């Protein structure tokens, strides 16, 4: 019988951390219980990244995720890097603030909007755009940047937005483009990328 990991009531990123422990311990089948959809999304992404299938059942406000190792994909051991950087892995953009550069905020806001306007029209797109700290105010508050992010999403770019940061600023309900994410996924995208551009 597979192990049951009860992560109900645990704040992000504990459910992911608990599941990751089970994977690192070599468990090929286990179940995680959580009580919010953010944790479900985070765990599903963890499963996909680690070579597991994760089916979800909802019952009485709780979610039951059954992890089952997918035989066609290898599971990274604790000793191996999750992903090796490769030049062919494209690039990622890390946005840790809501303006470009120091100095005048209004000018910095304009520069940020122009950056995403130009990026959305570019032929050389990043694999992922990662928002943390005040950067999350762009997909959750700046209407123009959110429109450009939607264009980038439609063109296949992954947009990850730090859930801790959204909650800190009290704007989680304003997220207009992108996926609520966590430090694990954001770090993994940086490690996978051939280069990371920081704004």
């Amino acid at each position: 019988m597979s192990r049951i990991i009860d992560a109900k009531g645990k704040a992000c990123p504990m459910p992911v951390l608990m599941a990751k422990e089970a994977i690192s311990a070599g468990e090929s089948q286990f179940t995680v219980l959580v009580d919010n959809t953010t944790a479900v999304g985070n765990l599903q992404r963890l499963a996909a990244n680690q070579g597991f299938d994760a089916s979800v059942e909802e019952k009485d406000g709780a979610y039951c995720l059954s992890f089952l190792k997918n035989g066609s994909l290898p599971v990274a051991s604790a000793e191996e890097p999750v992903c090796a950087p490769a030049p062919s892995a494209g690039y990622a953009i890390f946005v840790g603030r809501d303006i470009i550069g120091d100095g005048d905020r209004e000018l910095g806001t304009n520069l940020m909007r122009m950056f995403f306007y130009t990026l959305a029209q570019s032929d050389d797109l990043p694999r992922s755009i990662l928002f943390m700290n005040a950067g999350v105010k762009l997909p959750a508050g700046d209407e123009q940047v959110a429109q450009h992010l939607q264009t980038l999403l439609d063109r296949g770019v992954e947009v990850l937005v730090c859930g801790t940061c959204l909650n800190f600023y009290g704007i989680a309900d304003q997220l207009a483009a992108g996926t609520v994410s966590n430090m694990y996924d954001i770090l993994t995208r940086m490690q996978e990328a051939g280069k990371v551009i920081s704004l």
Partner: protein
Amino acid sequence: MDYCLITFSSSSGAIQAQRALKGHLSFQTMPVLREISASCGIAVRLAPDAADEARSLLSHSELRADEYAFYGISGHGPTLTAQPLFG
């Protein structure tokens, strides 16, 4: 015309114009097209049918008429054309 573009003689003029337009009509901030100017600059993009209202709003702002210019933009890439408006 696909859209209307307003360019400015200075970045501070572009920011002043945004303050004048904000709340009255929908616009986007974008870099000045390379077809119009080689230098880095802030431009404002509008729907074609918003050009007249934008012109009226700017005429009542602190900006002088020679500090901004309207263009009608059609096409993109090699086929892009920028036609001065209200000349």
